[in-house]
């Protein structure tokens, strides 16, 4: 699946936790359109009104640590976020992002180099992140084949739907 995503960078540090991505007090819904209004508000109070479609979250190590709330990647998706570029991810957030189809890229070099507001282009087929202003190109780590299958299916829901159909016809 070839896809190019363009947007500007919102830069955060290490250990961005799920409570700042979407505070638990808003989890009386799982509707991304409502959740996105409070996305990242713990760190950038007006984030949801300033983020533009395609913009990237760029962060350091352990992005998405804390709660298992799937509302975190859903809120980022709802806000129109083009994806997350981080040096590393907390494991539950990683699974949730893959499952709900939020693009995530692991690339410590890009995470270090990119500054707030930098224009970025991600090409998922070539596995590259380009800082379009200066033409610097980074390669992100590919997922293991099984995870690629889930991504290619469009997330875990369609993936399991196919698996259930296979089991029925077996």
């Amino acid at each position: 699946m070839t896809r190019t995503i363009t947007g500007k960078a919102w830069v955060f540090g290490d250990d961005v936790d799920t409570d700042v991505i979407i505070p638990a007090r808003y989890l009386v819904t799982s509707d991304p359109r409502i959740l996105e209004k409070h996305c990242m508000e713990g760190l950038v109070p007006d984030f949801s009104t300033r983020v533009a479609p395609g913009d990237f979250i760029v962060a350091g190590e352990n992005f998405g640590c804390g709660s298992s709330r799937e509302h975190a990647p859903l809120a980022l998706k709802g806000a129109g976020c083009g994806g997350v570029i981080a040096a590393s991810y907390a494991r539950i957030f990683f699974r949730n992002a893959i499952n709900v189809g939020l693009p995530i890229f692991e690339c410590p070099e890009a995470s270090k180099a990119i500054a707030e507001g930098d224009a970025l282009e991600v090409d998922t087929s070539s596995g590259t992140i380009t800082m379009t202003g200066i033409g610097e190109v980074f390669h992100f780590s590919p997922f293991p084949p099984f995870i690629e299958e889930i991504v290619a299916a469009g997330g875990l829901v369609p993936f399991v739907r196919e698996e259930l159909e296979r089991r029925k016809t077996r």
Partner: protein
Amino acid sequence: MAMTLAQAILSRKSDKAPEEGTLCRVRVDLAFANDITGPPAIRSFKEMGAEKVFDPARCAVLPDHFTPNKDIAAAEQAKEARDFALEQGMLYWEQGRVGIEHAFLPEQGHILPGEIILGADSHTCTGGALGAFATGVGSTDLAALWALGETWFRVPSTIKVRFEGEKPENIGGKDLILALLSLIGVQGARYKALEFSGEVVERLPMDDRFTIANMAVETGAKAGLFAPDKTALDWVTPRAARSFEPAFPERGAPYEKEILVEVSEMTPLVALPHSPANVRPALEVGPMPVDQVFIGSCTNGRLTDLEQAARVLRGREVHPSVRCVVIPASREIFADALRLGFIDTFIQAGAVVCTPTCGPCIGGHMGILAKGERCVSTSNRNFVGRMGDAGSEVVLSGPLVAAASAVAGRVADPSEVLAND
């Protein structure tokens, strides 16, 4: 090749030998969600085209987060979760009979040694205290588990943690896990399993083990495991809801590294805002006034925790400018605390006592912080805005420090309050 405890458990339920770093499919013994993570799981389950859960006796819903329903939206979520559970014939306990999932499920014998437990809640790792490979997932993963009865794991490498020395009386499970967090940080065990051992662990009561396993996720770990010993087996055997077969680490298993935590000289610890790894001794914090104290949660809402809090609060009063909220983690714990007089002690001291709920720990209800307020909390996370306004602060501690702080009106070491006993 000898196996770590994580590998020994995974090998039983996996499609292939659990080699570290490889992906394997595993069958699950219990898959549960709560009133927050349940509804999105139910919707994903339906979108998957699934009709029946793989085994209703191994699938559960626990209404514990925004319960007793805090507002209409929370009530709608709890209702959606309940209706689905009843329609599917799944395990379900109504508000009043349930408890906080990670305290209640082990009590009910639904988390057993050698099992694989998946919950749509990050603190599912609490079950590691009983030697179960227990870990948290999101709602869509949980939906897939309900539909298929299996999931995928990357087999983790294991860090062995040894707690050694003579444990001082005022040191509990919370201090031990905070000591580890101060050594390895909030991502020191990212994607790995922790295996807890050492002479301190051998003598450690179950409640302290649950606290330690509970906060394994705060180090980034996938699981925090204790090999089931006599203490664990004596605790769990009479409760077991299913037959079980414990798994054990094998001699010569390959540990990625070993971390030694020497406890003999420790004094009670706290984690200051806004990271569970921002740890110091309570005695060294200096003057830090508090507005609220919360004693409860899946981390420290068990009987031993309440007993320790009662030890400090007995015959004393909560400081006039502090609200102290005490929440037993389950009905059984609440009933025991009532019978043993702890609840009376709390009420006499001027504390608020509430029914089991996750409530304040997640800034849900029953103890929210205003801007500029500070809370000493026995829960597990002190991130920005965790318990209320983004301008509030949370200091994490064990129940002794929390109760002492409630009396002193500032962060206090228990010895400062208990000195006159």
